[in-house]
Every structure is written in structure tokens, then in C-alpha cells.
């Protein structure tokens, strides 16, 4: 890295530490020495490099970036700024490079501000090798999957039971009450409570085929549906394992229930 870029890095570091309470100098050095150096070496346009560094400094200050190798949570910002952008920008046309920096920033910041489960679904569906040049159509596809109600409605006849082991990520988790957060996303509360009477933790699950565990989320949100739904009695006729239900929730497209003596969640998804 030549002197000019080193000086810019120092200036952004000084500005960042005087501006942001969360400024993390170690994280900034990690950006400078890793992805920023490789991007600079790729001879990307000067304006793009400057923008990349300026935005990266803002992301460090706002606490959007985590060291890739740490136990910190996975985030779109970390993946895009530390992996995808430095690797893919050099092969794209210059105008597209600037455009993608802005798009990645906006998507990353919107996901940071949105519910945790939303970012997790995006990251799972983007996969390991997201092509940034396809960011808009990919985002559209994922958005539709999450926000649009599915085409097929759930009936007792077409519902197929998927068994989700909720103890997979948290061995002590005892699945309890269920809340729908989106047409195909539920939050499942731990039956164990703290002294304040609130669940010890909540985990979110994406009810797709096959269902995906999305990890712990801070609070439930959403509306709780009525239990004792006759729908379940009909489904139970198909699958005798659906007895001794602890709590159940259903909308027009998906249904899920937990059990008094099991760590599994039964998710009903139309075939």
C-alpha cells in the first residue's frame, strides 16, 4: 500500500475515533491490512477505492463489521465488505463498482436495522458465493420468498410434517409458545423462564422446505394465534405423533406446533 493510501487510512482512523463511541481500531487495521490492501492492489478506480475506505470506516464506527474469524455474529456487512466486494469489484465495469458499493451499503444497513431473522435468511439464501453483479435480482428473489405469501394454501390434506430439532443449536432449549413473524417465519419461545417471567431465549425458524433454523432472536414480536385449533385434530389423524401438543400456531400457508415432552418442532408445509 503506498503512502497516499496509508495516509488516508490514518486520517479515517483519527476521524473515526473522535466521532464514533464504538470505534474499533483493531477492526480497522484488519480492514486496511486485508481486503482494502487487496482492492488497492487491483487498480480499481481511485474514487471507488476512496469510497470503499470511507464506507468501511463508517461501518467500523457503527459496529457493523466483525472480524471474520471471530465468534461474532454473521452479518451481511461483514461478508460484503470483507469478502465479496474486494474479491468481485475489480472484475466489474467502473460505473458498476460505484453502484454496487452504494447498493451493498444500503442493503447492509437496512438488514442491520431490520429484525435479526431477516438478515439470517438473506445470508443463508445468498450462500457462500453470491455474485454481486446479480445483487438486485437475487435480492428480489429472496424478498419475494420472505415477504410474499406462498402460492399454495395449507390444508389438513396437503400439509406435510417436517420435524425440526430445536435443541440442535441450543441443547437446553425447550420449545414453547410460537408466534408468526412473517407468513413463513415463526419465533419459538423457550419454556424455561428467567426471574422476570420472560422466556430464557427465543429461536426463529423459517418454514420452508426443508425448514431452516435461524438462531436466537431478541424478542418475539408478532401476534400469537389461538391455540386449540380443530385443524390440528384433522392433521393428527394423518400423523399420530402430533399428540400431546404444547402450543400450536397457524396461518393460511404454514402451521407449527411444539410438544410437552419433546425438543422437536413440527412444521406443516404444503406439498
Amino acid at each position, binding site marked *: 500500500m503506498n503512502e497516499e493510501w496509508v495516509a488516508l487510512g490514518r486520517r479515517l482512523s483519527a476521524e473515526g475515533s473522535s466521532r464514533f463511541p464504538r470505534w474499533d481500531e483493531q477492526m480497522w487495521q484488519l480492514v486496511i491490512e486485508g481486503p482494502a490492501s487487496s482492492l488497492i492492489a487491483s487498480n480499481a478506480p481511485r474514487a471507488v477505492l476512496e469510497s470503499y475506505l470511507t464506507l468501511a470506516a463508517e461501518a467500523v464506527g457503527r459496529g457493523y463489521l466483525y472480524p471474520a474469524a471471530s465468534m461474532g455474529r454473521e452479518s451481511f456487512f461483514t461478508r460484503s465488505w470483507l469478502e465479496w466486494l474486494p474479491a468481485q469489484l475489480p472484475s466489474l465495469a467502473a460505473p458498476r463498482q460505484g453502484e454496487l458499493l452504494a447498493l451493498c*451499503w*444500503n442493503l447492509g*444497513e437496512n438488514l442491520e436495522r431490520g429484525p435479526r431473522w431477516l438478515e439470517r435468511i438473506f445470508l443463508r439464501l445468498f450462500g457462500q458465493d453470491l455474485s454481486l453483479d446479480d445483487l438486485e435480482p437475487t435480492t428480489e428473489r429472496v424478498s419475494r420468498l420472505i415477504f*410474499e405469501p406462498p402460492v399454495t394454501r395449507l390444508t389438513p390434506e396437503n400439509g406435510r410434517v417436517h420435524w425440526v430439532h430445536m435443541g440442535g443449536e441450543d441443547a437446553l432449549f425447550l420449545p414453547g409458545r410460537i408466534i408468526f413473524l412473517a407468513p413463513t417465519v415463526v419465533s419459538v419461545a423457550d419454556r424455561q423462564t428467567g426471574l422476570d417471567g420472560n422466556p430464557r431465549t427465543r429461536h426463529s425458524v423459517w418454514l420452508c422446505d426443508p425448514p431452516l433454523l435461524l438462531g436466537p432472536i431478541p424478542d418475539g414480536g408478532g401476534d400469537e394465534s389461538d391455540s386449540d385449533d380443530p385443524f390440528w385434530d384433522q392433521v393428527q389423524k394423518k400423523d399420530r405423533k402430533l399428540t400431546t401438543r404444547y402450543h400450536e400456531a397457524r396461518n393460511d400457508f404454514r402451521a407449527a406446533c411444539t410438544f410437552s415432552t419433546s425438543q422437536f418442532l413440527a412444521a406443516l408445509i404444503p406439498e
Partner: protein
Amino acid sequence: MASDTKAASRLLDLLRGRATVKKDLTVHLSDRDGTNLHDKMRQAYWWITNNAIITPYYDIEYGVRSQHRNVAGDEILLHDSMSYSSFILIPMLTLFTCRRALLIGGPGRGKTTSAILMAMIAGMSKDGVRRSILRGHPQLTVSDMLGAPLPSDMLKAEEASQIKVSWRQWITERVKIIDEYNRIPTKTQSALLSLMAEGFAEMLDQYVQTGRSSWFLTANEDSGGGTFAVIEALKDRIDVVVRAVPFNSNFADALVKRIEADTSPEDLIPTEIIFTAEELDAIYDEILDVTMPRECLDRLGYFLGQLDFCRQASRRFEFMNKDTLRLAGHSVASVCNEQCPLDKRVHLCTQTENGVSARSYLTAIHFAKALAYFRGNRAVELEDLRQLLPWILHEKLLPNGRSAYFEKPENASLLHDRVAWISTMWDTAMKQFEKHEPLRKKVVTLRDEIDKGLTGVDFKTGQKRINKVSALIGTLMKQEFSGPVYEDLVQLKAIHSRYQNYLQWLSQEG
């Protein structure tokens, strides 16, 4: 079709934000809209905790407690939820609720630094803060404190209204710092009292308003024993006490770094945690919107209400309170003896020389809402009150050192640690509340009934209700006549009087 539009708009929302690319390929970031003030407040707290004031004392604690105890009986409690340092958090809550805090502790413990940091995160410059600190000393006059008439006007003026007063700048600052307030002479303290109590100062028929502001006073000793004794009314105007904590030697390396960097924490405050006046006002409004649940209010009332009760103070029901003793020049210690049948180990009334004013209730509600807001809750929790009350009542409650309660060896140390003493009283009161609650609920039901108003209540219904009140008074009189029972009886008697007056009026109206 409608869902297509919805999904499309969500897609646009996700890719749209404050980053835009210009023709020259640079990416511009506009200012963040709708800044989350709660998040900013928490960032400010953590920045001060991690960078400015070195304190490993996290004494505002939440969550389940696990206990480690040695054979000598010393114990340490570990909590499994968030903990905060009162020395930083309480001044912050004072700033955001526009209250008045007294920082006490020995010299060099960071009291003034803490107050300066509060002023600086409220947007004042370092030099501005230093200039505006009012430093208490034995020669401080009212003019030194408030300002003085312009000498030129004094010579030319033919009447008082022509004399302009040059008010001291600190009076109108959002954050007011008074260093070593217990060194201010009594006469000047009185002028300060008017300023704190009324929110304005007067000189030569001219007035200056303090505006919405937070006050930070410091004192080197918590006994009020500076050069001058602090007048009672001034003490009562102080909402909360913050106790400075000693330096922990394990953090000496942080001091080395500070010396080597040749900077002070005030020089390094990040701009992102500095609040504008509008933001401070907005936070205050958001704090006021936090709900105070009825149960919390009931329990707060149950605790504070019984502190003023003294069965020995008077034979007359209405005057069985500690004010009666005080006005007669007596102390609780002089009457709280074996002639009072109440068990001194159980009843809280024996432990204090005084009760608290309505101002303490207001302060508790204000601070509890602010703490709930800081913790990200929309409603106050009982634990918020438990954590705050020791700091709110610290200077307001005087222990009755001669109470039989403090004679027990395990309670004796509570006499010199007011935080532990008040926490213990609260815990005792909460246990007692569970037992008393069924009766109290009946009183609350009757109160709710009358609070709906008497319009349309006929004579027969009024009679029925008055009979219910009398019956409940009868039930309560069969209980042990203690502070909580007395509080309920006062309320029931008031309800009875209101019904009685109403029925009297109905019968006169014919």
C-alpha cells in the same frame, strides 16, 4: 397483484438507503434519518464506562443472583443479566430527566469529571463547561453566584428598572454544575434554593429563568459537613445522590496509558454521542411515555407510605406521623420504645426518623421511567424501583439509630451504609406486601369506585357503598395497627368522608 406491489416496494426499500453513487463514482452517505436516541444514550453510557471513568463497580444489577460466601460470612452476588455502574448511569438519567443530582465522595474520585462529561454530552464545549462551573467557597456572595448590576447603569439610572443586571452565564445553561456546594455560605445557599426551587432568580426587579436544565452538585462528604451546614430545604430539592467510588488498583495500567497519551477523557468524547438540545427534549418526551404499571406504583406507595407512620406520635388518628413529633421537637428515638406494641424487627416505621415528601415519589417515578427507557423497556419494572430507591432516598431518610432493629449485630452495619439499608427495607416491605395485598386490593377497589365520580349515584347506592367502606374499616381495625394498615385506613376514612358529604348534599337537595 397487491402482494406483488407490496413485495416490490419492500425490495426497493431494502436496496434504497442513504448511500448514493455520484457520476464521478464516489459514494455519498447522507445523514442518518430517525436516529435511535435510545441507542445513542446507551452508546454514551458505554463510552463513558469504557473510556472516561474507570469504575469496575457495577452496582445496578439485574437478573438471577448466585452467591459466593466465605466462612466469615462475607458474600459476593453474581447476576446473570445486565449490570450498570450507578456512578455513571445515575448522572446520565439525571441529565435526561432534567433532575438534580448530588455527587458525594472524597476528593479526587471523579465527581466533577463526571458532571463535566454530562455537560459535554449535552453539547457544551469543554471551555464553556469549565467557565460555567460555580465553585463553592466560604466567601461566595449572592452577586458572585447570580451576577451583578452593571456599574455604569448604577450611576446613570434614575429608577431600578433602568439598571441592567449582568447575569452569570451558568444560570441559563442546560447543565449546571455547582462544585462543593456545602462550602457555600448559608445566605448564598438561600438564593441558590430559590433558583433551584422556583427556576428563576430576581435582582433589582429583574428576572432570569433557568430553563429546562439538569443540576449536578458535588460535596466532599456525605454528612453535609463542609464549611457550612446545608439548609434542609436545599437538601430536599436534590433528587438523587450518586456516591463516588474508590479507584481500583487493578486499573493502574489505564492511568499509565492516559498519562502517556497526554489527554483527558473530555478531549476524546466522540461527536456521535453528543446530544443536541432538541434530542435531549425528544428523549425526555420518550421517557415520559414509558408506562408506570399500577402494581409498581402500589408497591412504591406501600413502601414509602409506611415510613412516615408513628403510632406513638399522637392519640389522634390523623396525626400519627413523624411530622407531629418533629414539630414538637421530639425524635422518633425518644418515643419508639416498648410502649409501642409493634415488633421493631418487623415494622419499618421504627427504622427512620422521618418520612418522605411527595417530591420523592415524583423523583422515583421520573427516574424509574428513565431507567426503564435506558434498558429498552416500555414499562417500568419493580426491579427498576428497587435499584433506584437507595439513591433517591439516600439523603432524605434519616435512620433512627436507637431503634431496636439496629441493635441486632447483623443490622448494625446498615447504619453506615444507607444504600444497603434502604435496599434491605425495600426487600422487607415487598415480602410484607404479599401478605397485605388481599386487603389492599379491597381498598383499591373502593377507591376505583369513587374515582369514577359520583354523578348519577343515588342515595341508596351511596349508602350501600358507605357501608362497604365501614365494613372494610372494621376488618382493618382487627389487623395489627401498623404503617400499611394506617395508610389504608387514612384512605378509607377519606372515601367515607367523601360519600358522607355527598349523601348530606343529596339529602339537602331533597
